């Protein structure tokens, strides 16, 4: 077989047509580019916030000025924060019925399947468009259980005491530069409170859509699952591609009380001009469980390391993540766990695929404090590179301060195996289908953890196409 006759196959980029449809840039108000105390005051004033929140924002801005961009990880030089519009209010107030949402915005969410999913399989939905939540709804049966599901702005009005107690208590603005930025210009997001002893059978979902070019999205998600309760929360995000860079610096703070369980699923499909610098953290009390399921498919640069702090005895963290880095993408993702109490458990299972010169890095920390005797942790990271141009790295940090722990770590980095491709082809399966099978098989353990419609979508995303012809 001559070189010329050899067909070249490749895994196609994730088809972005669906996400790339954008609406004309309309707004009722947008902040000037860049970041000044006046802009921050203006955002706070327009939201009619209590003065403590205005102060909180200004203090965060001060910290932001003082902190440097992290010296490690992906290069952020091209992120020109002085040119990011930090606040874009869409030309509508928040609605409780899709019929009241302006046509073009509604159609965006219809294309993304949000109202359909709400109808079919969700207990409540929040939909954010640029800086503000434009739609929020929760099923009556859930509300009757006493479950609170609100956009953050409404939550700040209706549950000011709770918000003041919890807001950015877990991720303080001093945590890093983008946390400080978030504290200064946060807008939108969701608040969930599940009272003790409630089992919320069907998931809640918030969807974040960034439509405005050159803008930032800084939504804040705050979830408290009280003692013995269960909740599954799904977060989805996407944006159309523009030639200018966008920034996403959201913040997620989760509180899992004694004996409670929270499953937090994220499917991130930002466009390739997005800098996704997101901070997520969960505090888990005695015998509580946090389950992170994380799919990172989009963005130009991602830095995302959901952190679990196991502070109660017997607390447990599970992290299941899949990262798919294509051409021009640098996805630096992973998980952090702090074992701060005895008999705590963590399982981290991360997989990544890189292709077309993309870079996928697993970066994680497991810290086991001296108190955390009889704790267990297993970390497994697997990377699959589909071509010689792509890169993959694994940077696991393990810090153990006591002997009485059970720690397992496994990392595998590899290319797609020619022997496996030949084996499948010898059974009548074409080369491209063989590769697709191997890739699908690789992600299968993760795919089955995703909400069903996302699992189906992910399989569709891993499309393969034949390039070139027999010469």
């Amino acid at each position: 077989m001559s070189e010329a006759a050899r067909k070249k196959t490749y895994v196609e980029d994730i088809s972005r047509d669906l996400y790339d449809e954008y609406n004309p840039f309309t707004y009722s108000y947008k902040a000037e580019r860049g970041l000044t105390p006046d802009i921050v005051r203006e955002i706070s004033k327009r939201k009619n916030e209590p003065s403590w929140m205005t102060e909180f924002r200004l203090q965060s801005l001060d910290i932001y000025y003082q902190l440097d961009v992290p010296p490690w990880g992906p290069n952020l030089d091209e992120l020109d924060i002085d040119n990011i519009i930090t606040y874009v209010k869409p030309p509508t107030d928040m609605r409780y019925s899709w019929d009241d949402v302006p046509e073009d915005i509604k159609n965006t969410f219809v294309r993304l399947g949000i109202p359909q999913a709400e109808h079919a399989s969700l207990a409540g939905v929040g939909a954010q468009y640029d800086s503000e939540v434009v739609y929020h709804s929760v099923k009556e049966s859930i509300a009757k259980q006493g479950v609170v599901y609100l956009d953050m702005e409404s939550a700040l009005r209706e549950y000011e005491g709770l918000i003041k107690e919890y807001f950015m208590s877990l991720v303080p603005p001093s945590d890093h530069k983008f946390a400080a930025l978030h504290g200064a210009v946060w807008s939108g997001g969701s608040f969930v409170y599940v009272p003790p002893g409630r089992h919320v059978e069907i998931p809640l979902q918030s969807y974040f859509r960034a439509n405005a070019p050159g803008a930032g999205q800084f939504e804040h998600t705050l979830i408290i699952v009280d003692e013995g309760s269960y909740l599954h929360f799904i977060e989805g995000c996407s944006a159309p591609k523009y030639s200018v860079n966008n920034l996403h610096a959201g913040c997620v703070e989760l509180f899992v009380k004694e004996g409670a369980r929270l499953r937090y699923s994220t499917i991130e499909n930002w466009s390739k001009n997005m800098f996704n610098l997101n901070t997520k953290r969960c505090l888990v009390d005695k015998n509580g469980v946090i389950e992170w399921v994380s799919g990172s498919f989009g963005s130009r640069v991602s830095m995302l390391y959901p952190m679990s702090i196991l502070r109660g005895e017997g607390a447990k963290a599970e992290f299941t993540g899949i990262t798919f880095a294509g051409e021009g993408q640098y996805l630096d993702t992973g998980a952090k766990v702090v074992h701060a109490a005895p008999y705590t458990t963590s399982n981290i299972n991360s997989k990544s695929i890189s292709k077309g010169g993309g870079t996928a890095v697993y970066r994680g920390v497991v810290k086991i404090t001296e108190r955390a005797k009889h704790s267990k942790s297993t970390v497994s990271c697997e990377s699959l590179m589909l071509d010689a141009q792509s890169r993959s790295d694994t940077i696991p940090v393990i810090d153990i301060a006591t002997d009485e722990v059970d720690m397992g770590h496994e990392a595998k980095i590899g290319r797609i195996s020619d022997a496996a491709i030949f084996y499948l082809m010898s059974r009548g399966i074409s080369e491209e289908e063989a590769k697709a099978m191997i890739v699908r098989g690789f992600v299968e353990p993760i795919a089955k953890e995703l909400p069903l419609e996302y699992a189906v979508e992910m399989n569709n995303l891993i499309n393969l196409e034949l390039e070139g012809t027999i010469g």
Partner: protein
Amino acid sequence: MGAHFLRIHDLHVQTGDMEILKGLSLTVGQGEVHAIMGPNGAGKSTLANVLMGHPQYEITSGTIEFRGEVINGLKPHERAKAGLFLSFQYPEEIPGITMENFLRTAKSAVTGEQISLLDFHRELQQKMALLNMDGQYAARYLNMGFSGGEKKKSEILQMLVLEPKLAILDETDSGLDVDAVRIVSAGVQKFHTKDNSLIIITHHSRITEDLPVDRVHLLLDGRIVESGGPELVDQVEQYGFAALGS
């Protein structure tokens, strides 16, 4: 028609700079069972892989003709569709794909027909029972964590499901205990009809005892140096490869 079922003529094959097959010729008629014996490094596995179209091996000259068509340029999956099958010496483990899904996909690909889930499930369970395989293996990932014997049974199962015209068994009997060889042989017998041919590559005589071998070939240093009837197996047993090749 039997004579030209498979015809390999003066085949030269190299990988990298090394020539492994050095003018190998072999003809297998329809319905015939041929055994190829030879020491390690003679080129037995290379022959099996070249017949299946492994891209690592380059045919520098010679032809492989199968059912009247020269297949030198066909890709592995095209050869499978033409009716060739290779039972691998070291079957791959493929995570994330269940045996049943994989085999149904493969069967569809080979036959070009959609197959009913239920019918296929029933057929697969029957064929697994024939090989003394636990039916639950159908739901396991392809060959993942299978023992050596289970992997070989999995190969024979795939052969029974895909129903090729010519199956090449590369050391299918090696590493198996006596019972496993018997089960595998039973599976192979089930496959063998007057329409289907077999090439059995082995360096043991055990598997050939259970099968109606028509011809035995001795492969040494990239060539068939001697061919004969089943009695050649006994001579190999008695005198060794080296004595017969000289």
